[in-house]
């Protein structure tokens, strides 16, 4: 059961999401390469999962009864690493090792390098299938944990995604919920220019999934939507989460140019100033 998100906790989570964004910028600056827009855009959703939705134990990452959070689009892993560090899976200090030699934090997530990752990902379109395997195993074992799979919108151009969509519906995997980060960008441009995905809702409905939509930056609304999705019986569920890539950093928002590059020192400072003042709305608490 996922608890209702009360106002006091919501305020706490919103602050934490800002903290996650700051740490993403710091981590990317230190790494010198990596993706900026996707991680910033998914910060609220990762915050909701790691600090409210998931039934998990960061000190016992292999706990068999934990909910599984599968990340299909591995390139947004900075947001996962930062969220996991803040949740207590590993020391925050270790974030500085991202993409460097001898690190557990690979440029794209490698399952056996870091406890708690659940899968290896990077090549797109493979996450839902792996989540399906976990959902089937849970059904075979009569285990009540849930499997969540976070996907990008761009990877819905991969055939494998729809192979998985067919299978999950056919096998009535109601212990599986997919979240689509509908941020409308991919490396080469806007999704609707590169290879149109709309209507994504109608596609999933046609594949016999229960479809929800939510504002991916409204943590309360997102949690409520997930609470509805997990109550679905006999069908897999999908939440199309509308997000703004680069969210929280004005000069990155909605710019596909920021899909696959990190900020330089000057850009990072500008981004951090903006995040710490909530885009100029408040005086920074950090300075």
């Amino acid at each position, binding site marked *: 059961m996922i608890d209702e998100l009360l106002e006091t906790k919501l305020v706490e989570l919103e602050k934490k999401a800002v903290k996650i964004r700051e740490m993403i910028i710091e981590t990317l600056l230190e790494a010198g390469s990596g993706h900026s827009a996707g991680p910033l855009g998914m910060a609220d959703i990762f915050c909701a999962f790691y600090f409210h939705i998931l039934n998990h134990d960061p000190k016992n990452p292999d706990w068999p009864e934990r909910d599984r959070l599968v990340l299909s689009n591995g390139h947004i892993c900075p947001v996962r690493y930062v969220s996991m560090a803040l949740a207590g899976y590993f020391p925050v200090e270790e974030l500085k090792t991202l993409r460097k030699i001898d690190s557990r934090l690979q440029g794209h997530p490698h399952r056996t390098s870091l406890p708690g990752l659940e899968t*290896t990902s990077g090549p797109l379109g*493979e996450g839902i*299938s*792996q989540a399906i*395997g*976990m959902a089937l195993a849970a059904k075979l074992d009569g285990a009540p944990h849930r499997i969540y799979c976070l996907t990008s919108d761009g990877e819905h151009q991969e055939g494998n995604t729809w*192979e998985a969509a067919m299978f999950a519906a056919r096998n009535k995997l109601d212990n599986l919920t997919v979240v689509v980060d509908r941020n409308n960008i991919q490396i080469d441009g806007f999704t609707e220019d590169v290879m149109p995905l709309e209507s994504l809702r109608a596609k999933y409905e046609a594949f016999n999934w229960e479809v929800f939509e939510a504002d991916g930056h409204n943590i309360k609304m997102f949690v409520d939507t997930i609470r509805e999705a997990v109550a679905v019986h006999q069908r897999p569920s999908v939440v199309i989460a509308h997000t703004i890539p680069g969210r929280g950093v004005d000069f990155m928002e909605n710019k596909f140019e920021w899909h696959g590059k990190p900020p330089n020192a000057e850009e990072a400072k500008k981004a951090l100033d903006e995040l710490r003042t909530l885009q100029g709305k408040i005086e920074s608490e950090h300075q």
Partner: protein
Amino acid sequence: MLNPELKLNEKVFDEDVEQMATREGYGEGLVELGEKNPNVVALCADLTESTKVEGFAKKFPERYFEVGVAEQNMAAIAAGLAISGKVPFISSYATFSPGKNWETIRTTIVYNQANVKIAGHHSGIVTGPDGATHQATEDIALMRTLPKVSVIVPCDSHQAQKATIAACSLNGPVYLRFTRDKTSVITTTDTPFEVGKVYKYFQSESPKAVIFGTGHLLYQALLAAGELEGEGTGVTVVNVPTIKPLDVEAVLNLVKEAGAVVCVEDHQIEGGLGGAIAELLAGHMPAPMEFIGLRNTFAESGKPQELIEKYGLGKEAIVAAVKKVILRK
């Protein structure tokens, strides 16, 4: 002569030697595993009958998953099942799995260290009339380049059954290669089989060459050895069911003894058994080598024996290769 210690099929040189497809051994092994191990599950991509998963599917329907014509999905679902403690066996034709879904296997099974067993069927040109689209002749190379994957090519149905059982007890990805057509039964239920070992099936006094053979063509190698021995040319025939990890010490000892090598496989000559042996010898014990396999070509439709002859994979070609390699010593 045949190695008497290995309890091989004594009738292997008879005209009416028993014929059985290696995929039959896979089907039997899978059912046996299903009975012994409740964690074994099977997935198939719309080829349940021809990959012989049918028996398992009927006996353990709750542990059998039909994925339809979707080999990438099959591989990644299996990875998820394996990460969750199951032991999945995935089956399709080898041109599709690991052909079509190779990257999915690389990322979600191999790099992910997921305990999945990949059964590639209809391998080699002996797939016959279906033509080159369905004759997998590159799959050993595809799987052998992946780190820490065991690659096993059974020579007959008995060995296929044993390899299937053995694959289950290895913790990690395994590739098993099977053939569609019936092939000569070389071993018996009592013939020893261990993953990672080579076996001397045929031996002559003071051999002048060693033939390493994998899969069904081992039969052709044995026929060639019989003929050569009759002509006074002693050879050793070694079955190499496990191409990876290779039985390094035994292979080197056998090459040291014979001084010349012929490798035999129903596969492109690049990247298969011959490649594996050549890589080993280049670093340790260079020796003259000849390769029996497809040479920079696809095959075509035809009867298996016709194709074996046309593409130079049969007894005559092996005899010629042995004679040639001995002259190069």
